């Protein structure tokens, strides 16, 4: 099962987890990214806005889930990414990998989130004190993605 969802609605962890666990395999690994308040000189993050490239986003995430499924023989690979406006503490992204083996599920989960950071067309804008600022890409994300090549 490959499940890709790009949606302005809050991520329903219970429903997403049930889909993955329902595949009948023994090992499920997940990663959830949450909006951080990240207090700074110009205040904490009030809202985070996620822009994406409709069509290309879904294609990139599908490719990623398929690559993980092939590499680790997954029974399920899920990527759910929220778009639009969200607040501190809310979920931005949820990825899950199910496999018969725990090492495969754990590695595939790390792969999905590492590659998503560099390979999917999303852009974050933080609003602090009423002022928006586009988040800069991090070199560390490229290093993390590169280890899977």
């Amino acid at each position, binding site marked *: 099962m490959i499940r890709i969802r790009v949606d302005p609605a809050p991520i329903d962890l219970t429903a997403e987890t049930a889909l993955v666990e329902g595949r009948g395999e023994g090992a499920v690994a997940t990663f959830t990214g949450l909006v951080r308040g990240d207090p700074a000189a110009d205040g904490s993050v009030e809202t985070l806005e996620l822009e994406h*490239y409709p069509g290309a986003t879904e294609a990139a995430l599908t490719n990623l889930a398929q690559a993980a499924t092939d590499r680790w023989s997954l029974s399920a690979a899920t990527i759910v990414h929220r778009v639009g406006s969200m607040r501190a503490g809310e979920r931005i992204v949820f990825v899950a990998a199910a496999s018969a083996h725990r090492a495969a599920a754990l590695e595939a989960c790390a792969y999905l989130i590492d590659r998503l950071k560099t390979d999917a*067309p999303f852009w974050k804008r933080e609003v602090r004190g009423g002022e928006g600022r*586009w988040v800069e*890409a991090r070199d560390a994300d490229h290093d993390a993605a590169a280890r899977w090549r």
Partner: protein
Amino acid sequence: MGLRILYFAWVRERIGMGEEQLDPPAGTATVADLVTWLAGRSAGHAAAFADPARLRAAVDQAFVPMDTPIAGAREVALFPPVTGG
């Protein structure tokens, strides 16, 4: 027909629109050539494309390097490095 050109994030904001349909002149061979041509269209375009090192591209929805040919492409997107997840 023309080429569909998409802008995202601060590239979109500086240009002041998310999308335009254009016919690049003959000799516009690569994404980089396209960017050079687009930079001359307005002050906003110039500002968006002032630092090519901060720019990324997709041709027909696939991420590509700037020296990628655009012959036959239907859609080119220009944007900053991605920051999802």
